[in-house]
């Protein structure tokens, strides 16, 4: 502990102990606890207490009957726990009977303060910190704390109840880890009394008819098996698993969600997953739980690396069932492909779909989401029923837009439940997009594109559904490139393209800005992939889309303008934004895209479009876009000028990024420091002076937004490295006079940003660069902006300042 903190500590303890002093907020107390934790982890707690008796006094003070606030009491309990985590300190506190006073019957446990949830929570957390050594275990057993913990499991405060459960896990771990260490499978009779007591309690709970008690026990067990990896967990599971299995025989199964969590926790535990009984229980759970409850278990099982094949098949059929029902509901002929064959398929009936709309929608959505997560995994079920899944998703989407024809009465009910359901539409479109990773029969792929087009065309598609439809369409277009990876579109996709562009045209005119925005994003993505491809270019140039995109640069919504900027950037880099041959306005000269984007950068009132412009310019410069490549200096200069004056820090950062790319093109790429040839360096520096990069960069070094300063620092360091290669330090001071530059820099640093830098010569720049300690600046900037204010000293000062102990009221403002 640093001396200043040590000096402040007694005053702080006095403040904390004084019920008349209003203590700063809970956050301060939390920070204080964090600090004490860090201090005790770094050194001896005992020593700390001996050196700072005020701390012990504080704890003793809390014991006295008085009107202390509940948060101070809670704080003291947690603090005592932190100190007592070290066994010698525990003994020290025990000698003073402090711990029984705090955590035993005489303490807050029996007092009125116990009614405050924060005190109960502090009590639990204190014990949780303390339970680290055998002495603590004895203390817990002797003080009767375990019974209190049992009762707190049902506490009305969820935080307290949950913490109580975790404390039980801690107690079990502490009790069983020691004696069981190294043994193959410890037996129950070897367990310490405390552990036996907890286990008996868990058994009672599992046998209980009250679902909340069962849930509590299951939560404790889930945490135990999830966090504890000791061999003793095998013994515990062996003893409790029959009780868990018995829960599955009840009707209805109590606490199904907690049960699923437990089974998955056990299955994931490397110590327990070899138990064959576990898989039997899991199989039983899959068959006993309702489809909605079993879904997460099935998905969890399928994500496991290693589990019996039969169980995987059973789990997969659970996930497939809702989709199979959907297929069944529209099956016209017996020959229709089924998703589930054999026994699983026969078991299923369309009637088993939940009768209520919300349950049915929930089941379908969760099945789709599970399958979506499963699809890209290497351990996904094999063979993967790609074709029936595609058919099912297409059918779901058809039900949702009312175009599917159900073949049964149950199908009719399903249709009525799904029509217009946005949730299912979104989930199905997401999954459909993921399914593009696999192949499908051409006929189904045709259906996929057809339904996607229906959604894109339909005026009833909500903006979010439309966005998903665009995303899925893009994925399917990408996957239909032949051969995979080739940038040419498949003939069928080329046919679709015409219709897509017609839809896009209309969507770009939508009164709903989200729709225009997702339309533009789709266009940008399409152009990125196929901008160079003949049929795409032809179709696009034959449509109104490029012109509409250009018009959307003036959209009233800033997000749309930003997307339009990105789209214009992408279109023009592929030469797809040629001026339209408008017969009505032949005389009006069209602005070049470069000019248009520059106009956005200099005039747009919102940050998003301006940031987008900077990204486009950077991309153009990096990729050598023709208009920019022709005369990079000429193109970059106005952009940098505008960016340097921008009020949005992200635009300024982007401006420096653009400058960096420009610099790389002049002096060679970043990387191992290689000096640029002197001739090239001089030319580059002259060019940089002409585009007024240095004023921008130097100013940015003192930007009030740290990322800007960091970026500028990186830029100047790069330049410095290129100018003065390592090992060849040039003499400082034999160059031109840099006093005026340095004076300007000092004034900027002091916050006087109005001072201009004036004309700069390349030599002066180099001299300034050499004289500046940019590395040190970079290190300072790398520290978070509140590193000073976050120090413990600052914390203590703050807390004292709020109660006026320090005499003045100079509180830190941060």
């Amino acid at each position: 502990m640093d001396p200043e903190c040590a000096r402040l500590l007694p005053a702080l303890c006095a403040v904390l102990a004084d019920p008349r002093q209003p203590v700063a907020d809970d956050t301060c107390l939390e920070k204080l606890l964090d600090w004490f934790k860090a201090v005790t982890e770094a050194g001896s707690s005992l020593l700390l207490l001996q050196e700072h008796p005020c701390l012990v006094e504080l704890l003793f003070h809390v014991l006295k009957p008085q009107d202390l606030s509940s948060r101070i009491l809670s704080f003291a309990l947690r603090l005592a726990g932190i100190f007592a985590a070290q066994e010698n300190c525990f003994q020290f506190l025990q000698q003073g009977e402090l711990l029984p006073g705090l955590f035993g019957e005489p303490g807050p446990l029996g007092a009125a303060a116990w009614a405050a949830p924060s005190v109960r929570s502090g009590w639990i957390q204190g014990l949780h910190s303390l339970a680290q050594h055998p002495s603590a275990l004895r203390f817990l057993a002797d003080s009767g704390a375990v019974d209190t913990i049992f009762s707190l499991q049902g506490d009305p405060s969820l935080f307290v109840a949950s913490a109580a459960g975790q404390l039980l896990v801690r107690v079990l771990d502490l009790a069983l880890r020691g004696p069981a260490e190294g043994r193959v499978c410890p037996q129950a009779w070897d367990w310490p009394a405390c552990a036996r007591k907890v286990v008996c309690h868990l058994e009672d709970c599992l046998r209980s008819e009250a679902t909340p008690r069962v849930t509590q026990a299951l939560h404790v067990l889930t945490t135990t098996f999830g966090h504890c990896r000791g061999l003793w967990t095998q013994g515990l599971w062996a003893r409790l698993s029959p009780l868990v299995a018995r829960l599955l025989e009840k009707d209805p199964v109590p606490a199904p969600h907690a049960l699923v969590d437990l089974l998955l926790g056990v299955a994931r535990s490397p110590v327990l997953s070899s138990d064959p009984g576990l898989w039997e229980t899991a199989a039983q759970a899959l068959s006993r739980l309702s489809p909605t409850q079993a879904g997460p278990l099935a998905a969890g099982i399928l994500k496991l690396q290693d589990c019996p094949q039969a169980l995987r098949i059973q789990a997969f059929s659970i996930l497939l069932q809702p989709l199979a029902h959907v297929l069944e509901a529209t099956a016209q002929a017996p020959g229709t492909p089924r998703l589930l064959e054999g026994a699983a398929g026969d078991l299923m009936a369309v009637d088993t779909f939940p009768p209520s709309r919300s349950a049915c929608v929930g089941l379908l959505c969760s099945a789709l989401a599970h399958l979506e997560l499963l699809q890209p995994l290497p351990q996904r079920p094999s063979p993967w029923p790609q074709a029936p899944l595609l058919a099912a998703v297409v059918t779901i989407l058809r039900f949702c837009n009312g175009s599917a024809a159900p073949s049964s009465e149950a199908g009719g009910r399903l249709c009525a439940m799904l029509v217009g359901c946005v949730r299912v539409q979104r989930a199905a479109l997401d999954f459909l997009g993921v399914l593009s990773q696999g192949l499908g029969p051409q006929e189904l792929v045709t259906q996929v594109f057809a339904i996607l087009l229906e959604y894109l065309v339909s005026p009833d598609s909500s903006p979010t559904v439309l966005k998903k439809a665009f995303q899925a369409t893009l994925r399917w277009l990408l996957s239909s490139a032949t051969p995979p990876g080739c940038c040419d579109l498949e003939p069928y996709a080329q046919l679709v393209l015409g219709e897509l562009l017609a839809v896009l045209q209309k969507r770009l005119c939508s009164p709903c800005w989200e729709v225009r925005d997702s339309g533009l994003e789709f266009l940008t993505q399409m152009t990125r992939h196929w901008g160079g491809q003949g049929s795409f270019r032809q179709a696009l140039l034959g449509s109104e889309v490029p012109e509409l995109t250009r018009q959307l640069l003036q959209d009233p919504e800033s997000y749309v303008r930003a997307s339009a900027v990105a789209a214009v950037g992408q279109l023009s880099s592929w030469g797809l934004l040629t001026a339209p041959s408008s017969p009505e306005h032949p005389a009006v000269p069209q602005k070049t895209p470069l000019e248009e984007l520059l106009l956005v950068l200099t005039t747009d009132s919102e940050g998003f479009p301006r940031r987008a412009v900077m990204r486009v310019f950077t991309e153009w410069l990096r990729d050598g876009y023709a208009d920019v490549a022709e005369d990079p200096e000429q193109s970059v200069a106005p952009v940098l000028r505008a960016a340097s004056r921008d009020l949005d820090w992200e635009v300024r950062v982007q401006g420096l990024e653009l400058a960096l790319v420009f610099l790389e093109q002049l002096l060679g790429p970043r990387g191992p420091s290689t000096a640029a040839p002197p001739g090239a360096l001089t030319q580059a520096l002259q060019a940089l002076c002409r585009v007024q990069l240095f004023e921008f960069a130097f100013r940015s070094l003192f930007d009030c937004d740290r990322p800007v300063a960091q970026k500028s620092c990186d830029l100047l360091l790069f330049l410095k490295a290129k100018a003065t290669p390592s090992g060849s330090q040039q003499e400082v001071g034999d160059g031109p006079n840099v006093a005026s530059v340095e004076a300007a820099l000092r004034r900027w640093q002091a916050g006087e940003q109005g001072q201009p830098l004036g004309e700069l010569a390349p030599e002066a720049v180099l001299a300034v660069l050499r004289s500046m300690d940019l590395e040190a600046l970079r290190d300072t900037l790398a520290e978070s902006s509140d590193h000073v204010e976050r120090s413990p000293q600052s914390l203590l000062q703050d807390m004292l300042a709020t109660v006026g102990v320090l005499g003045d009221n100079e509180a830190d403002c941060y």
Partner: protein
Amino acid sequence: LKLYRKRHPTLPCNVLKFKSTTIMLDCGLDMTSTLNFLPLPLVQSPRLSNLPGWSLKDGNAFLDKELKECSGHVFVDSVPEFCLPETELIDLSTVDVILISNYHCMMALPYITEHTGFMGTVYATEPTVQIGRLLMEELVNFIERVPKAQSASLWKNKDIQRRCYTMQEVNSLVGYSQKIELFGAVQVTPLSSGYALGSSNWIIQSHYEKVSYVSGSSLLTTHPQPMDQASLKNSDVLILTGLTQIPTANPDSMVGEFCSNLALTVRNGGNVLVPCYPSGVIYDLLECLYQYIDSAGLSSIPFYFISPVANSSLEFSQIFAEWLCHNKQTKVYLPEPPFPHAELIQTNKLKHYPSIHGDFSNDFRQPCVVFTGHPSLRFGDVVHFMELWGKSSLNTVIFTEPDFSYLEALAPYQPLAMKCIYCPIDTRLNFIQVSKLLKEVQPLHVVCPEQYTQPPPAQSHRMDLMVDCQPPAMSYRRAEVLALPFKRRYEKIEIMPELADSLVPMEIKPGISLATVSAVLHTKDNKHVLQPPPRPAQPTGGKKRKRASDDIPDCKVLKPLLSGSIPVDQFVQTLEKHGFSDIKVEDTAKGHIVLLQEAETLIQIEEDSTHIICDDDEVLRVRLRDLVLKFLQKF
């Protein structure tokens, strides 16, 4: 209580007989018949005037003057005619009142008021009457300004269609929630239905029965006052008509579609034609466009609204503040015009003209957007624009009115190069809204046209597109008479204060008191009053005089009324006490039989009657009767 169904569900014309009153509910005019006629061009159209006559397959050409072939379809070359309301089902002169729910549902009114001997009153709200009159005026104007030399009659075999009417005054104005007494028998009240300016649902109620007539209602937030749902609660019968014609088209999506297509066309240099009625959805469309045109960069595009009543319609909408939604009402107090089309007019973005002749031809600038009628494309200025713009694929016609099949409307203009977009905007209730409404107001019975109780024929799998309620809705078909499923059980009768004073109620159960009353029932104008009976005239002297009023009914001295029940066990004990022996009691389905075997007498005790059956022994009977009476209360 009977309901006579006369028209199709969106243009309803029902007749309700309720408590001796005959009420016609709406009087819609089916104009779909006009689709069979050739368009009436405002400007001589060589194409339409040189169409070939149509002859029968056998070559018989007797109809070729009247029927013309155009684009593969046959059309009648005559003044368009409309389907009349049916007159056979009921004698329309017996109709007491006509209740109008909105201005679209009164277009057949002149046919009833002029030709049927109808003598009753028509009730409607003021905006309904005013705007309805505008619609009629427009219709008459459209047809009268293009006189046809001939009126075809050979082509039809039955005179079910009539030529358009001439204008005529009809109205009796009411305000929302205003109660109107009909002959003292029933009370009718209009409630806001949220569909159009002044549109209303009607409550028809007596003291003990309530029938709600829900026709053309909307729960969407558009310009009219929102629908009053609360007042529909506790209805015995709810008659449900005028639901959306296009249940699958969400109005919001359609407005979006409308705007997108409009912008796309105009940006490409094309013109947009919107065939529409002069009032209604057009107000909302103009409001959407007001918000949209600037953002879509369409500020320089002129909008033209052409109708003989365009000016009145735009102005009327601004003055009916009390009939508007809350937002628009508050604007009036600022004071600002409630509808933003005022600003569009002020800034010259929206211009309106009575017809294409005159000023319009001077101002006309393309590309532009034109709103004009009639949505059937058979008459009105729209015919001119169809002829003018139909040949260019740059132009677009956007159908927003759901009343006509757009494909049929376009039939005489084929082949057509201009783009056609169908964005039907029907804000009336859809089936999801109906089921929510019915759950909310919980009527005992729902009565609706048959079409609403099954999915549309083209989408038979869409079980969601039908009225779903418990108990299932009763359906009726065209020209069907339906007895409504409840019986009137009570009638309210007032009692005069002096008569009430004379009553001496006796409590027979806690909370229930009874009193006998002798009075004269006086009935006038369906109101019933109990008045004190006249005092019997005292005979004066020995002279026998005629009583003061012979027509007053005799007031006989009444026997007391009995109430209560006879406890059989106690009754038997009492009989035994009075010397009867050999008593046997038998239980029957309705009560008990007490058998006095010795006396050969039977006492039948039932819930509402007691019979003493003895063999001609009057003394015994009276004795037994008195014993029975001991157990009963008298008053």
